[in-house]
Every structure is written in C-alpha cells, then in structure tokens.
C-alpha cells in the first residue's frame, strides 16, 4: 500500500505477534488485530454499501470470518491483503444477495450496453469538470458504480492499494485490475458530467422562473 503507513507505538503488540497469540485464542491479540485494521475495513464497507448500519454489520462479519480462519493463516500473503480479500468477498456476497437475480462477476463490472448502459461519444464537444470535485458528488457517483468497478476504485484510489495487491484481493490479474480501474474512472467522469449538466439545467430553470416573476 503506497499511501498510508501504519505507525506502531512502542509497547503495542506487533502484528505478527498478535497473529500468533490470536491463533492461540488470546482476547487481547484479537482486539489488537481488530484495532489495527478496523478503520480501513469499515471504510471499505462504508464506501461499498453507502450505509453505516450495513457497513457495521459487514465489518463485523469480515472480522468474524477472519478470526474463525486465523488458525489457518500461514503468512503466504500479507495479513491485511488476506483480511481485505475476506472483506471484499463479504461485501460482494451481500450485494449479490441484494440484487434480485444472481449476477456473474462480469455483470457486476460491465454495464449492460444493450439495456442502455453508458454510451461514450468520443470526440464530442466536452464539458470539463470545473474546479476540484466535491466529496459528496464524488461519493454519490461512486454509489452508482457497478460493485466490481467500485471495489477496485475504492481499493486503489481511496485506500491506496497497488494493482498487484488488488489482483490478490480480488482474485484477478493485474491487467484486469488496471482495466477495471480505468473503466471505473471513466464511468465516474460521465456520472459527474451528468450531475453537472443536471445542476446547470436546474440553475437555468430557476433563473428563468426568477426572471418570469419580475
């Protein structure tokens, strides 16, 4: 992970030691592991489902699954990667269950072009996203992404994971991770443009109404 580095304060149990003790059923070690990673897992869940109650539920479920399997952890991959893999699976499973029909991974990442998915008009006169992007608008757009795009976008652009880590978390190739991220950003750009156009239309309408009242 490039962006965020965790700092362990002196006297705190190192992660490797906490894993060893948790494998033996030590309560303080479980808590230590939870405290080391809870924020990122909660953040991932929150960004994915956009609902605090559900994010809490999913965070608990992800850690529960992790602690149930902790005795099998042999350190082949980074602990946080393993945990995030579990968390992403828990979230995607929940989102699949929520959708009316069973969705394949492709359906969770590729918008259905025949059913009027986003259409790109290359070379058309283009709006530019003015100024910096508002956090609320961005989150609203992220909420509209298909789950697969959303997961890669949140892991890479929000949480700072590298493509090789995401490939391990999502069980896909590095190329696939890059491609999903690119598509996610392009879709976000379209969604942000749409919201800009909607706002401009509303502003014009409001100005027209105000003019008519004069």
């Amino acid at each position, binding site marked *: 992970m490039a962006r965020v580095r965790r700092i362990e304060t002196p006297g705190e149990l190192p992660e490797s030691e906490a894993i060893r003790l948790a494998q033996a059923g030590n309560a303080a070690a479980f*808590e230590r592991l939870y405290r080391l990673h809870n924020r990122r897992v909660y953040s991932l869940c929150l960004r994915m489902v956009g609902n605090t109650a559900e994010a809490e539920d999913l965070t608990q479920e992800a850690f*529960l699954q992790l602690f149930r399997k902790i005795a099998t952890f042999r350190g082949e991959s980074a602990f946080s990667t393993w945990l995030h893999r579990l968390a992403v699976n828990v979230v995607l499973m929940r989102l699949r269950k929520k959708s009316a029909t069973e969705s394949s991974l492709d359906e969770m990442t590729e918008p259905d072009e025949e059913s009027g998915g986003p259409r790109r008009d290359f070379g058309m006169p283009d709006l530019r996203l003015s100024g910096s992007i508002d956090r609320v608008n961005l989150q609203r757009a992220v909420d509209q992404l298909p789950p697969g795009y959303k997961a890669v976008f949140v892991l890479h652009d929000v949480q700072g994971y590298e493509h090789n880590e995401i490939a391990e978390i999502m069980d896909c190739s590095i190329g696939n991770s890059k491609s999903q991220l690119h598509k996610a950003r392009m879709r976000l*750009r379209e969604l942000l443009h749409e919201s800009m156009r909607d706002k401009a239309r509303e502003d014009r309408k409001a100005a027209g109404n105000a003019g008519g009242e004069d």
Partner: protein
Amino acid sequence: MATVNCKDFQGRFELPEDSPRSSSPGDLSVQAHLRDCPSCRSFIEDLGKIRAAAAQLLASDPEPPARIWFSLRAELEKEGLIRDTPSKTPSKSWVRELFSGRFTALPRPVLAGGYLAALLAIAFGLSGPINSRINRQRWLDGTQSSTEPLSAQLTSAEKASFSSFPASESPVTASLHQNLEIVDNYISLCENSVREEPENELAREYLYEAYQQKADLLAQLNEQ
C-alpha cells in the same frame, strides 16, 4: 506516424501517477493527438481530479463505532474462539484493560456528581420520540448479545471485589459504594432505554459507557 483517435487514446491512457515508471503519454502519435485534441486534454485533467478527490475520501471517513468490537468480542466468546477469558476472580489489570478508564484521576465527590449529571443528561437525552424501524428486534438482539457478557463479567467482578473487603468500611469505600449504586441505577435506566428504543445508537453508546464507568469504579474499589 500512425494516427491516434480519441477512442484509442482514452481507452488505453494511464495516469502518470498510476505508473510512475512509464512515460505516458508515450509515443509521438499520442503526443501529437493530445496536442491537437482539447477533449482528450480535458479527459486527462478530469481523471487526475477524480483520483485526487478520491484520495481525500479516506481521511473523511468516520471512525468505526465501539459497538462493533463489543459485538464481535461477544460472538468470539460465544463461538469459543477466545480461549483466555478472565479468571473468576478478576484482577485490577483485566478490568482496566477491558474498560480503559477515563475517570480514575477524578476525586470521588466529582465522580458522584458526574454520574448524577450523566443520569440527568440521559434522562433528558433519551426522552425523544421513538423511531419505528423494521429491524428493532435485530438491534435489540444484537445489543443484548453484545452487552450480556460484559454485564456478567461486571457482576462477577463486583462479587469478587466485595467478598475480599473487610467488614468495616472506610469513608472512601463507602463513597465508592454509593457511586456504584448510582452507576447501577444509571445502567438499569440505560438498559430500559435500549429495550424501548433498540435502534437508538445514543442509548446503546450510553449503556456501554455506563458499563465502563462501573468497571472503573470496581477497579478503584480493588485498589483500596
């Protein structure tokens, strides 16, 4: 030099921040296209803005609420994954460890006054309208399953503390007993509030807080 159209360019473009070692946009045809195409220039700029805005999102994320851990711990205990639960005779250290104290530095009269104030605050704070939500029972079950082990541990800690005391009480111990009584009342008030409004996050936070205050008092009692 092969020409590049917008579709090709936008389809394969990578932000330099994503792959610092590649010199994107690489070949001359791409550079020429970029020079002549305002649409693709704005495309690059927008993607950079999206990436920068996304990086700010993590910092704005809220802390996960304490109840997730309480609930998780209760589940771990229930499933037998935690195998070193505190012994029947609790020591000061585990009480302190389990409920990191916030009030230990305060003089006892301040504590008693504080608890009374908290009692009044919660009485006012929780007297709002009841939200009707479908998952009331789920919240109630979740809260009960997460608080019952804490409550049981505190009761056993309390018994152990009292059994080790001499018959005659010092004024300080008497004051602690008085505070314990206040906190017990506070706990039952919070428990009632949670039962009435299981989905009220504030009520559940107060309940956990009340348990923590009791644990703190027991730790002080042990130190006497």
